[in-house]
């Protein structure tokens, strides 16, 4: 109990530091765990290992609950291509680097592929904070994370399949995984949604259902020779269909928060063996993650229809090592495939890359990288435009903006980075151009300073400010939801249209009708 209090105390300090510095809590917890292990208060390793086991189960289980395929239904092709190519290329480069650093083949595979998956916790948290979940690259990145998790689980099953023995023994784990996967799919689509409908009465029953599913899959997985991690993940997937996942998210969330805090602190206490060689190797591999991931993701994302900026943003956001990568390494360690050093190396790279994500995945870095993009070397021709109206970003209501302006006789030009929007506009004979409406090069090309009006429907405040700054006196109208954003835009010289006021006005009309009806 005292050990638990100690871990929680250290975790509380870690959360406070992360909150103050606005960085992810995971690397802080790992580093504080390391400090705890070096202190005279260090708890026994047996306790840390017990916590790690329960922590892994809940971390992987909650990752599985988030695996709702409908989330990336409209970008399936891009998601699969980006996820698999990035995972495979990065995995092989990582394996090659690890071998070059003197690690054996199996250890190098573990290192390479553990580093190739990105962190769901870090990336989703970042997207939510930046309100970017619904942007095309946000959806792409979310899908990529989920596919990578599945790929890592599959690889883990193959690696942990009995190394010696006959073919039957070797095939046991993959066959078991297939069977358990089938059961998980059946539960996902048929059994659990129906069961939940019957058990809707209270949170406790739902929680029990969730935990029963987890422990059943773990138990059956154990009997079938499937890795513990795969069982937890498939249990999560079984519960990931709506409304089951929605109802369970809050309940499991408390357990996940609790075990996550303990897990990463306990993990830090196991890194005590880290020596200087491991540290510089970790620095090298961190550089590899940052050098390799963004170009691969950018290239594949552009090939699958994303803009250069979206590709770079996705690449930067995916350039870190996943918590599932740590679990992957931990499983390898417990199986005897890798040693303490390899495990420490992977955990260190994960800690460093996770810490650096908020610093790297920023607009400033994105724009800097954009300047180096091959397409930027081409000089864009200035279009022969004057006294026109620019619509930057078309959005869901763009046609209602464009149509009255066209009917009033204005020359309009729509700029949007979504290829499907551009295709639709082309079909309907609305003048349009595919590109990033906040990019000064694009604004220069479309003669923004000669326009009589710019209407921006771009969600990012920094992009809107960039447009206002570039436009130099041209009237820029921007629609925003938050009052604070509206004030910033007006201060910068733009004209803010308050979407919240408009929505309240329309809501009031509907509410009046509702009151009359009831």
């Amino acid at each position: 109990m005292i050990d638990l209090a100690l871990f929680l105390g250290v975790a509380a300090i870690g959360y406070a530091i992360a909150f103050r510095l606005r960085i992810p809590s995971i690397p802080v917890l790992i580093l504080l765990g390391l400090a705890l292990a070096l202190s005279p208060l260090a708890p026994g390793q047996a306790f840390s290992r017990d916590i790690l086991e329960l922590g892994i189960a809940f971390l992987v289980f909650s990752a599985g609950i988030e695996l709702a395929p409908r989330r990336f239904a409209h970008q399936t092709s891009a998601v699969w291509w980006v996820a698999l190519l990035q995972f495979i290329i990065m995995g092989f480069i990582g394996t090659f680097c690890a071998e070059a650093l003197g690690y054996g083949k199996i250890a190098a595979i573990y290192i390479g592929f553990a580093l190739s998956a990105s962190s769901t916790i870090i990336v989703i948290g970042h997207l939510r904070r930046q309100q970017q979940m619904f942007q095309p690259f946000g959806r792409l990145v979310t899908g990529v994370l989920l596919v990578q998790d599945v790929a890592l689980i599959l690889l883990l099953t193959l690696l942990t399949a009995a190394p010696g023995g006959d073919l039957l023994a070797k095939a046991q784990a993959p066959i078991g995984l297939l069977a358990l996967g089938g059961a998980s799919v059946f539960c996902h689509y048929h059994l659990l949604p129906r069961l939940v409908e019957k058990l809707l009465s209270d949170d406790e029953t739902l929680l029990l259902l969730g935990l029963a599913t987890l422990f059943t899959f773990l138990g059956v997985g154990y009997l079938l020779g499937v890795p513990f991690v795969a069982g937890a993940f498939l249990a999560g997937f079984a519960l990931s269909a709506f409304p089951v996942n929605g109802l369970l998210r809050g309940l499991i969330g408390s357990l996940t928060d609790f075990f996550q805090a303990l897990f990463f602190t306990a993990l830090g206490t196991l890194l005590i063996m880290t020596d200087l060689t491991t540290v510089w190797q970790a620095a090298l591999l961190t550089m590899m993650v940052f050098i390799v991931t963004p170009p691969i993701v950018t290239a594949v994302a552009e090939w699958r229809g994303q803009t250069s900026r979206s590709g770079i943003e996705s690449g930067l956001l995916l350039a870190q090592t996943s918590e599932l990568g740590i679990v992957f390494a931990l499983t390898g360690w417990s199986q005897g495939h890798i040693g303490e050093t390899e495990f420490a190396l992977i955990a260190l790279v994960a800690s460093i890359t996770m810490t650096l994500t908020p610093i790297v995945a920023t607009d400033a870095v994105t724009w800097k990288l954009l300047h180096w993009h091959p397409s930027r070397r081409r000089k864009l021709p200035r279009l022969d435009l004057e006294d026109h109206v620019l619509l930057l970003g078309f959005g869901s209501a763009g046609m209602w903006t464009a149509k009255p302006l066209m009917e009033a006789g204005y020359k309009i030009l729509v700029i949007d980075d979504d290829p499907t929007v551009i295709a639709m506009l082309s079909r309907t004979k609305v003048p349009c151009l595919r590109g990033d409406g906040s990019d000064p090069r694009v604004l220069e090309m479309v003669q923004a300073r000669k326009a009589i009006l710019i209407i921006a429907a771009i969600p990012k405040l920094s992009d809107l400010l960039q447009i206002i700054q570039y436009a130099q006196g041209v009237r820029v109208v921007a629609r925003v939801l938050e009052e604070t954003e509206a004030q910033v835009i007006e201060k910068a010289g733009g004209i803010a249209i308050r979407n919240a006021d408009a929505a309240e006005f329309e809501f009031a009309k509907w509410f009046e009708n509702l009151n009359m009806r009831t």
Partner: protein
Amino acid sequence: MILARMIRLPSIVACLLAGLMLGPATGIIENSEALMLISEIGIVLLLFLVGLEVSIEKFSDVGKVALFAGLAQVVATILLGGLFAWLLGFDVKASLFLSLAFTFASTVVMVKVLTDKNELDSVYGRIAVGISLVQDLVVIFVLTILTGLGTSGGIEGGTVATGLLKAFGGMGLLLGVVLLASKYLLPKPFSWIASSPSTLFIWSLSWCFAVVSLAYWLNLSLALGAFFAGLSLAQLPYSRDLQHRIKPLMNFFVAIFFVSLGLGMSPSDASAEFFPILAFSLFVIFSRPLILLLTIPRMNYSQRTAFLTGITIGQISEFSFIFVAMGVGAGLIPSQIMAITGMVGMITIAASSYLILYNHSLYDWLHRLGLLKVFYAKKANEAEIDQKSDLTGHIIIVGMNTLGRLLAEKLHSRGEIVIALDSDARKLVGLPCRTLLGSSEYMDVLLEAGLPHAKLLVSALRIEEANDLLAFRCRQFDVHCAIHVVDTSMAANLLELDVDYLMLPKVDGVKLQTRYLRTIGVLPS
């Protein structure tokens, strides 16, 4: 356990049965050190939660009757129960432990069943919860004495007095520390991290286990430390939100605690005590309504209220197991008492759960038979029966961003009863309407906001999963809802969930924009 829940068996009984099946019946699992640690964490979290729930507000309206009836019931049960046990042939120490174990009602069971019945806010529901809180305070007192007895290693002589002195001294010190911390140490840092729910959650748990460690160091029970830790956080404005977050964690650990209790039971011992188990179970179930029918009506409450309250508290508590386990652990009573208490617990908890479900029909039946006339009590007062929460026909607004605040202010100014809900305390500041701190992901939060009786729920949130879930909940309770659609890709799912109104600020903003363009002459008026 899920099967047990389907037949409306309370979770505690289901856990005990599961433990019995896994342990004594089949021998699949044995109690281990890890299970004991998890059980201890469960007790700590349960008591922490009880501490968090203690609020002066809850006592204000029914405080007097709860205090009077609670103390009367405790004293009467100890005396009658002790005498009853002694008459059944148990020695004095065992009789004392048994009477103590049968004194306290389970807060968890009654709150759970009353919430399911949607009668937690009824007069009898509030009195029952009030009585359970009075009992919680007595529990702390008894736990302290037991710890003193446990540390003294016996029940005789001056060592007991020293043990009691140490326990009360330690208790006083611990209470002083947590109360001072509650007033001077905790509010500022907790207010600083209030906008981060995960940090708030981990901090509160860290505080809980820090106080538990202090209690351990002072030779006090861990449960006592946890209760005081909860008490010190109960006065913070985030305590309700913390309760909702800690409850699932507590449910997980407590389930294992009760399973481990089942594992530790000895049905063979219990079968040898069939008659006492049956007698004690009937004593617990019938003595409560009888005692309360004699006390509550004397304080101007109706016979119906007294009867319903008595039925509600007609089971023994999880503390009962803790008491007896402590007594067995200290070598004061034989392990056979644990088996008896466990079986009485299972029977009374199961029976009272069903009795609470059908309490009104039961009262009407007994009243028609004239069996309650002997108590010469006040007749049913319908006003008391119908007195429930004033939250009916109100509007719940979730997410206090600019849109949420605007809607809350405008609807409030129209005279609507509005409840503004957000998980960030800072976003609720300055609103003219009623506010509730909490995450809409938790059903308990929505129930506290009165969702089943609301006329409308509006979500201004920009989180797709949360909005889908709110729409689903509204459909479940047949409540109208208006949901913020951040992206048109969300609309299809929401329409499938029968959302009444989709708020499309991006689309509505275009209308405002068109008006502006007309004003400045860009578009013809």
